[in-house]
């Protein structure tokens, strides 16, 4: 029974896989081409001239290393935001799951209700508040709004409920450990898969964020990679004679910008898959 395999099903799934991977293959192929070949050779196969390395060099060093700067900004914004958000969610989720205090249910309910509040509806009022506090055009404008993750808190609360047994907390208390010491030395390790899940998904959300930086930043030195690529692409479609060179930058830059996240997902798959199952089964 277990040995049975369906060829028809496999074939159907191969078709689906091609749909999802072919565009990425195209992007890779396109980033190995010179601008001339981009227009003259067939899109889904390599041209005779393999210029991936020179394209990368051109992209990374163009305009005083501005691409590298954007990449660095993106890494900085997303690591700080994701680390902060995951920490806040772990602390809060554990608190909501393991302590009884007045207002526990009401506060958690408030956060739960906010899962459905669309982040982009918040962006414009947040911009107006931040411009009063002179936070616009600073890294804080990107990091602070990304620290709030109601869904992350929900996920961590559910996860903490089962992952940290009450008996262990009680035993640690009898041994005389303080509440925060219990959290950091005992509970945190048990919460790790949940934390990695929240970390990874906040990382993706910040890494991929476009609307917020578009509103908040107008200094190109602070741009994350999404905003930088969008700016290059508008130069490429607006400019006349020089379009070609910028076009190549956009394509190679796009290709480079997706590598880190794909690598992170592949390396950490054990964690995020187990963490996700908690959220969806009980959700």
């Amino acid at each position, binding site marked *: 029974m277990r040995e049975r395999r369906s060829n028809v099903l496999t074939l159907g799934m191969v078709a689906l896989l091609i749909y*999802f991977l072919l565009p990425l293959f195209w992007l890779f192929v396109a980033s190995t081409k010179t601008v001339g070949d981009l227009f003259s050779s067939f899109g889904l196969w390599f041209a005779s001239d393999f210029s991936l390395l020179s394209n990368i060099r051109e992209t990374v060093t163009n305009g005083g290393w501005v691409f590298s700067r954007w990449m660095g900004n993106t890494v900085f914004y997303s690591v700080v935001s994701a680390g902060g958000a995951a920490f806040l969610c772990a602390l809060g989720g554990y608190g909501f799951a393991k*302590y009884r205090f007045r207002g526990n249910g009401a506060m958690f309910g408030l956060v739960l209700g906010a899962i459905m509040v669309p982040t982009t*509806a918040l962006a414009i009022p947040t911009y107006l508040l931040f411009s009063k506090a002179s936070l616009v055009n600073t890294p804080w404008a990107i990091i602070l709004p990304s620290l709030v993750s109601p869904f992350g808190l929900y996920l961590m609360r559910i996860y903490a409920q089962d992952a940290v047994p009450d008996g262990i907390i009680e035993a640690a208390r009898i041994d005389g450990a303080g*509440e925060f010491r219990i959290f950091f030395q005992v509970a945190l390790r048990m919460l790790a898969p949940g934390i990695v899940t929240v970390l990874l998904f906040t990382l993706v959300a910040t890494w991929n964020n476009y609307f917020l930086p578009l509103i908040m930043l107008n200094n190109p030195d602070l741009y994350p990679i999404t905003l930088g*690529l969008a700016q290059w692409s508008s130069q490429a479609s607006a400019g006349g004679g020089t379009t070609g060179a910028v076009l190549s930058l956009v394509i190679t830059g796009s290709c480079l910008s997706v590598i880190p996240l794909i690598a992170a997902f592949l390396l950490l798959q054990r964690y995020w898959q187990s963490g996700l199952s908690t959220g*969806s*089964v009980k959700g």
Partner: protein
Amino acid sequence: MSINTTDRLAARAPSRSEVRRRGRGVSHARTGYLFVAPFMLVFLGLLVLPLVYAAYLSLFQERLIGGTVFSGLGNYTRALTDPRLLAGMGRVGLFFLIQVPIMLAIALLAALAIDSGLLRMAKAFRLGIFLPYAVPSVVATLMWGYLYGQDFGPFAQLAGKLSLPAPKFLSSDWMLGSIANIVTWEFTGYNMIILYAALRAVPHDLYEAAAVDGAGAIRTAWSIKIPALRPALLVCLIFSVIGSFQLFNEPQLMQRLAPSVIDSAYTPNLYAYTLAFTGQEVNYAAAVSFFLGTVIVVASYAVLFVTSRRSRS
């Protein structure tokens, strides 16, 4: 605080063990607050406050004479009769009705196929289909924009080789479908993973019982797996409501490729952005944002309500 507690307890002259128990209970409750306080502070400052501020701003209007004046629900009556906003709302509503069922159907079929045990290389399929989720929507849109394009897009190239007319992905008739394709490409894998994770949690003795009763893979999927997936499907559906109604990145970037097709009010979010940053109509933009948020929350609860009623009957 500890002095206070001890005083209060000493007044009643309680037993030693009672002191310890009560003292500990109080400190536990306080620690609970300390644990949730950082999250709640950030939550109040960066989610609730902007929301309240948007609601407040939306009650004012800028006038040429007299500056900014209180106008009650004036912005909302304007919004409800604004043909550009209503057209955008209709467009994202249509997008939701067409794109989301297609995306969730593909995600569901893929999750069931991967879970069925009938596939070779199931893991490769799972990761491959999920991969686009790790691609920023900006990159996905730029990439599909080039793929759709007439200059060096492979579709146009293939059509040229077969001497057929190139498909006009960026024309006004096709645009919404072209955007729907990008969104489907980006998010099918994410939904598939949520559904797949939920499937893994279905107790396997149920499958064995079904097999004993002579149920095949399709019958098992239909009668056991899909009903078990209801909560996970609901999560996907709610996220899709939110995603569809706040559509922004894709149309904003496609606008450059087809400025005559996508106007500044193509989606409500694009409209709010234009109002705030090009039109300088901050108060009306806040009203549009708040209105959009309300529509999304109401639509999400409507989805919850409809599905929970159906499961009860």
